[in-house]
Structures are given as structure tokens and as C-alpha cells.
């Protein structure tokens, strides 16, 4: 599979129906979903494209961050007054009402920061599926990246062109990020 070359079929932004159709055709022609990836300038849901659901761990990473933030807040508001007890006014060392404020803020901070870290880590970690890019994508084009065995290439290209696709052969992987 690694030897297969990657091709890109570009559809205009108004031709989302054709793009979705093209994905179905590719599948019929024996290109598996693993060898297809769709790149687009605006988000299209998997339902629109008829693709398997993607998944992400961001929610879980965010939740883990919230737990960390919560624990830090517990330490700061209930632990530190014990490390160095200082009496102020008639307040107890570990008052619950004021701790709620600290716990809320730090839990949210943990949740939000780790959500971002989740996005960042998932973005820079290696992804599966055919790679490649074309500047027309950010102009709203829908691109279907696929790698196909050489023997079916001809028929695939004919099918796609019939649907109005503009085919870019042998897409080179571009380094988009340092």
C-alpha cells in the first residue's frame, strides 16, 4: 500500500453532491476508506460525505485536565493553609465558601488549557490516510485524496472526471509545519 501513489480529486465548492458521489464510487472500485481522506475548506460532517465517523480524544483529555485543575485547587485552598497556618479575622483556616471560587476557576482553567493541548498534540501527531495538500482547498474546494493500485487507476480517473473532478496526479507530501 505504501508504494501506491496519492492522487487528489478536486471538486468545486458547489459540487458537494458530486464529491459525496465520488467517494461512493471509489469505494465501489475497491479503494478502501483507509486509503481515502477528504480535505475541505469548510467542515462537512461524515454524514454528508458518507464516510466513517472520525473520533477524537479531546473530550477525554479535557476531562483529565479538569481533574488535574480540581486537585490543584483542592491542594491550594485546603492544603496550603495547613502548611503555613495564618489566622485572619475570625475565619477558619479552610473555609468552604471561599474555596468554591478557587476550585471553580482552576477546574475550568485545567479543562480549557488541556482541551487546547489536546488539539495541539493531536494536530502534530502523525495521522493515517493519504497525505497531500493543494492551495485550492482553502479556496473552498473539496479534495479527495486517495491512493489506488496502478491497475484500477485508469477507470477511477475516468469515473471521477465524469463527475466533474479536476485530478491532480502524484500529489507530493508537502511539509506544512516546521
Amino acid at each position: 500500500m505504501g508504494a501506491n501513489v496519492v492522487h487528489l480529486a478536486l471538486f468545486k465548492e458547489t459540487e458537494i453532491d458530486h464529491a459525496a458521489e465520488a467517494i461512493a464510487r471509489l469505494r465501489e472500485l475497491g479503494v478502501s476508506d483507509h486509503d481515502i481522506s477528504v480535505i475541505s475548506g469548510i467542515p462537512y460532517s461524515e454524514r454528508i460525505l458518507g464516510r466513517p465517523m472520525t473520533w477524537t480524544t479531546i473530550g477525554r483529555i479535557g476531562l483529565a485536565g479538569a481533574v488535574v485543575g480540581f486537585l490543584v485547587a483542592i491542594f491550594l485552598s485546603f492544603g496550603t493553609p495547613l502548611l503555613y497556618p495564618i489566622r485572619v479575622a475570625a475565619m477558619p483556616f479552610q473555609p468552604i465558601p471561599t474555596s468554591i471560587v478557587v476550585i471553580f476557576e482552576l477546574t475550568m482553567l485545567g479543562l480549557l488549557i488541556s482541551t487546547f493541548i489536546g488539539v495541539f498534540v493531536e494536530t502534530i501527531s502523525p495521522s493515517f490516510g493519504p497525505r497531500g495538500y493543494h492551495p485550492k482547498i482553502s479556496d473552498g474546494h473539496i479534495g479527495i485524496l486517495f491512493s489506488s493500485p496502478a491497475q484500477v487507476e485508469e477507470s477511477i480517473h475516468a469515473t471521477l472526471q465524469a463527475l466533474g473532478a479536476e485530478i491532480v496526479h502524484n500529489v507530493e507530501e508537502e511539509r506544512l509545519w516546521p
Partner: protein
Amino acid sequence: MAVEAKPLETAVPLPHAEEDPREHLMFDPRPREVMNRMVMEAMTTTSRRYWAWVIGLALVVLVCLLGAWGNMILTGMGLAGIRRPVFWGLFIVTFVFWIGISHAGTFVSAILRVFKAEFRRPFTRAAELMTTFALAAGALYPLIHLGRVWVFYWLIPYPNARWLWPNFRSPLVWDFLAITTYLLSSTIYLYLPLVPDLAMARDRTTGWRHALYRLLALGWRGTEAEWHRLRRAITIFAFAIIPVMFSVHTIVSWDFAVGVVAGWHSTIFGPYFIIGAILSGVAAVVSILFVLRSTMLHMDYFIRKEHFDALGKLLLVFSMAWAYFFFNDYLLTWYGGEEAARRILTLHATGPAAWVWYLMLICNVVIPWLTLWNRTIRRTPWAMFIITLLINVGMYAERYTIIPLTLGHQRMPFDWGVYTPRPTEISIVIGTFALFLLLYLLASRLIPLVPVWEVQEGQMAHTLRKVGKAEVPSVTELE
């Protein structure tokens, strides 16, 4: 025969320009390519006037903010007009003002996103930028107003040599935590939806800009996984940042409300401050949108009368809500009849600085109520600009009434005192306004100010459907 007497006159709708759905951005789609070019051109075009403003503002920041602040650090807080018993003055007033302004971005972008208010699409980024820079300007004030700013890090909880931690029972520490949380999360919330637009800018630039966008776009290609991830993260942020926003201004209000100071110790202060913050923030968004629309290329395509109209309606609602909370706070204090608090209310309305109090009521209530009900006024951008500037003047007056004017007349008449701001304070305040504008000006030429992908997404979801003879707007749920 009698039945089919006369042919019906053709019902041609009057050519009301306002009735035409194509007047709305969502029903006036342009190809993505064109919109990209418009945004890129707006971003890369600078005029001589632009640079004059940048240089001028940079000088003001240098002299009025850094110069005056530096001088105050070296000489002492005494350069400000604060005195016993008014220990907090313009610095805290302006701090509250900026934190209030910063609520707009989150409001426009998170709350309207959660409720799927489509008119938000073209200006979410402009509002988010405002949040971030208003916070940057506002977060300076807790530092500026410290008597010994060189030891500000004592407020940060970290294991230091003496194992002495900050006092988590102090509202100032909550402030520190809340503002840190809000600043970080609103900056990230600005950045996340920006990534696809940065990738767009990356594909269309060369040189240093290309290098910059390439770095910031994190290698964005627009794959399904990337979109999915981005959407999930934006959803988490939109929902989570709303309570953070509420908490931030509530905590700012607690700085006052937890004290024993007469006129501050009020349970309504939290929501009262939040409503005030949203009122001033949304007003500031309108002001900024007017400036963007009239100075930047192609912005009149993205930012239209409909947006001023929609925000104007929101402002009217918030102005009413503000009046409701204000009255609540006022009535109960007045009725409660505690001598000190009542005297403060009398003083606000009849004292030497009563004009501030009346200015607040006129700008926050009278002017919006008299003007914003009117559709024509709401759809006149320059009128909205003036009204929203006045609302912010009114909100500044509100904070001025609450802070120095209340502090000066507490329970011991012997210690009453009047506060007048001094040049150093005024200069620093002007300096932070310049800082905000400067940051905004620079950012407007560095990042795409319109979230193009969100606009295109919105335009794809909106179509005009023919029902009978009329073309009616219809929205498709794409997500």
C-alpha cells in the same frame, strides 16, 4: 361568468430594499475565492493614515503609559490623586471598565454560537480580539495600582523559599485566578477558529507572512479529522467559557461586595456587574465594527446594517436589564435605610459629583431607550457608533460612581474626603486606551479579521426557497 370577472392585478411586492433577503450577508453569497481575496486584501492593505495612527498610538503608549507608570513606580503611588479615605481611584475604575469590555467577545462569540444566532458569523473574531486586548489592557491595572509592583509575584501561588502561600480567602487572589483563566482561555478561543483562516493566509502569502502563518496554522490541511477535532474543541470552549465569563465579572464585583464598605456590600452586585459588563462590551463591539467597516477594505460586504440592527436590539435589552439591576440595588439600599448607605445615595444624586451619576443614567438608560427602539437609527452605522460610545461613557461613569464616589463618604464623617484624579492617573488611563487601539490596529493587519470559513459555512446553510410566489429564507442544519 361573473366568477371570473376581472383578471387579478399582479401582486408585485414593493421594492423595499430592506425586505430583500439578499441584503443579509448569509443570502448574498460570494465564491470562497472572492471572499478570501477580500479578506486578504483588507489585511494587507495599509494606508498612510494607518501608519500615522500606529506611530501616534505607539508614542502615546510609550509616553503616557510606560513613561507615567515608570515615573510612578520610581516616585511613589502619591503621584495618583488617591488619598485617605479614597484608596482606590481611576486605576480600579478603568480596570473594571476593561474587564467589562472583555465580556463582549465571549458573549458574541460563545453565547451567540451556542444559541446558533447566525448574524454573529462575520464578526465573532473582531469581538474575540476585543476580549483578548481589553483583558491585556485591563490586566495591567492590578499591577499598576500596586504600591510595590516589583513584588507582584507574591500574589502568585508557587512554592517559594518561605513556603508562604497567598491568602486564598482574599478576593484579590480570586481575581488573579479568574483573570488568568479568562485571559488564557479567551486567547485560545480566539486562536482555535483562526487556524483554518491562518492556513488560508498561508496559501496566499510569501515571505515573512508566509513563515508566520505557516507556523501558526499548525500544518492545517482541512482533513475530516482536523475539522472534527476543531469543532469538538470549539464546542467545549463555547460552553465552558460562558460560566468563566460570568465568574470573572462576578469576582470583580466581589472585590467590592465582600467588603464592609457602605454602598458596596450588596448581594446584587454580581449580576449587576455582569449585565453592565455585557452592555458595555456589546456597545464596544458595535463601535469597533463601525470603525472596521469604515476604514478597512471590503468590510462593508461582511459587516452590514443588519448586524448593527441585531446588536442594537441586544443593546436595548441589556440597557433595560441594566436599569432593572441598578434599580434593584438602589431601591433596597434606600429602603433598608442604613444611615451611611442612604447618605451615599443622596450624595450620588445631589453631591458635588452628581453630574457623574446623571451622566450614567442618561447614557445608559435615556439615550438607548430613546433611540434603539427605532429601526432606522439601529440601521444607521454612524448613529450606532455615537450611541455605543455614549453607553461606554455611561458605564465608565457607573464604575466611577461605585468606586471613588462611594469610598469618599463612609460611616465616620470626620474622614470624608473628595478625590480628584491627577495627571499621572489620567495619563495612564489614556495610555491603556492607546494600547488597546494599537494592539487592535496591529492585529487587524496580521490576522484575517473575518472568519471566512464560518461565513462560507453559514452561506451554504442558508438558501432562498421559493414558496409560492415569495422567496423565503430557509436555513439548513448542516452540523
